[in-house]
């Protein structure tokens, strides 16, 4: 009995090792250099909570173009300007697509935003809208007065703390207020406070949903790297993202309805803000695309920043302890009988 157990244990181990070698070693021949990849987790162990730092350390050893397998996904890491030029300029067309990580689907309203949509006609259309309608130098100049105004609000906010003599000021909320009001005025035509008065809960909830979304993006999703786990949605991130998407859709469609009505809600602004531009485009966009554009999450370094190996280590620790303990109990059980 015990022979069979040990035998099968080693056989399974041996066969998986062979499969591993047969699958991954031939690939490695023409790949860029990189650290050793463990089965299943790949190089995840090498990354810390600040992955850009760990990758920099690794790059010192393996060079400016480095291969890392994280989970089941092949990655290359670029760490100098010359290589960046190869990827972003010389081979720009080849590397123009985006990974389809799981929560991205709902976050980008089925890949209809500019930062995550695949290279194609739709993406080109969005790019065109951005470069000819939204973010042109001329349109940015149109909002100069608004920015000037927001700057003055910021100064007022800082002095408010002073009350006669200089006090300590926490800058993060002030900068956040400054940037979000700037963006609101360009997009919706008014400051956050006014928008809240006019659009009520919808607007407030829109911002809350977006910060919830940022929070989820900040979490590292294990199913992105080990796709076999996807159906289980272990961390519940996919479900949460779906809820947020519903909230966003609700809020934004109500907000768009108000703007479409075009009554007193349309703020008197001498310059056209983005919602107006979007609703009056020649190429009519569907609501989903408009929403995606409004939310557009150029979520910097999205799923990567929080890719902490610690999470994986945690799982591994538990798996390992489970096998270790069961094995140990089996042995104890065997010797007693």
């Amino acid at each position: 009995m015990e022979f069979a157990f040990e035998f099968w244990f080693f056989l399974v181990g041996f066969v998986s090792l062979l499969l591993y070698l047969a699958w991954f070693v031939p690939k490695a021949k023409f790949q860029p250099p990189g650290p050793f990849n463990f089965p299943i987790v790949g190089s995840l162990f090498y990354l810390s909570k600040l992955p850009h730092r760990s990758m920099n350390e690794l790059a010192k050893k393996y060079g400016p173009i480095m291969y890392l397998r994280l989970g089941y996904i092949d990655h290359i890491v670029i760490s100098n300007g010359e290589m960046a030029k190869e990827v972003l300029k010389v081979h720009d067309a080849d590397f123009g697509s985006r990974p389809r990580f799981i929560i991205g689907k709902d976050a980008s309203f089925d890949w209809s935003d500019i930062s995550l949509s695949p290279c194609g006609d739709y993406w080109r259309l969005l790019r065109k809208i951005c470069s000819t309608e939204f973010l042109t130098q001329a349109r940015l100049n149109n909002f100069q007065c608004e920015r000037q105004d927001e700057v003055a609000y910021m100064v007022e906010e800082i002095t408010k703390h002073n009350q006669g003599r200089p006090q300590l000021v926490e800058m993060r909320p002030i900068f956040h207020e400054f940037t979000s009001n700037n963006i609101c005025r360009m997009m919706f035509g008014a400051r956050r406070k006014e928008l809240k008065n006019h659009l009520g809960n919808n607007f407030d909830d829109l911002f809350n949903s977006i910060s919830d979304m940022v929070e989820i993006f900040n979490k590292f999703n294990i199913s992105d790297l080990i796709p076999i786990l996807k159906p289980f949605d272990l961390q519940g991130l996919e479900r949460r993202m779906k809820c947020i998407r519903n909230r966003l859709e609700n809020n934004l469609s109500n907000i768009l309805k108000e703007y479409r009505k075009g009554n007193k809600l349309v703020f008197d602004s001498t310059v056209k803000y983005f919602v107006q531009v979007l609703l009056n485009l020649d190429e009519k966009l569907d609501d989903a695309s408009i929403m995606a554009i409004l939310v557009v999450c150029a979520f910097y370094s999205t799923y990567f920043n929080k890719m902490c190996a610690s999470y994986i280590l945690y799982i591994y620790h538990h798996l390992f302890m489970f096998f270790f303990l069961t094995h140990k109990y089996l042995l104890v059980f065997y010797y007693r009988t």
Partner: protein
Amino acid sequence: MIGGGTDTTAVTLEWALSELVHHPEMMERAQDELDKVVGKQRPVLESDFANLPYLQAIIKENFRLHPAGPILIPHVNTKDTHIMNYKILANTHVLVNIWAIGRDPEVWKNPLEFNPDRFYNSDINVGGSNFNLLPFGSGRRQCPGLNLGQLMVQCGLATILHAFDWSPPPNVKPKDMNMIEASGLATPLIEPLVVIAKPRLPPQVYKPSI
């Protein structure tokens, strides 16, 4: 737009201000420049930015050392691609570590030092043509909000330097300020920046219109 433009810009401003509180001599130099170009009787206007080379240099140096997103959003290739002598299989995720590129000792002298002089009157820009400084990426997937982001940072930083003198909290020396980065969507400072602001202009210079 809401998601992408707010955090990244706010974090960039916070880093820039903490570097300047950390280096009072640079703050003074930037304020001297502002006083010379703008004076003390009117607010900074966007038309002034072109005449403020030291402020521009500070902003570039801040982008180099503290890019809001340390790794660009991953790119993916749809078919096998050859780079140098390597073959990159289809569906490989490409991570461009702009944080590391900004600190490459082969390109930047004393890379860890915050030194705006390296950009003073230089024509290096952040528009994606110089591959050693890529806070917004480059090529077809470059950040479309590049100009807006830069404008907001310039406006914000120029104004707070023009309107206030900044110093660290009492009992903290400028050199002892905490400059450690936290992990997060946009690598913010681990401890939120808390500083003392002392007005340096007559109060009527900056007044909101509404």
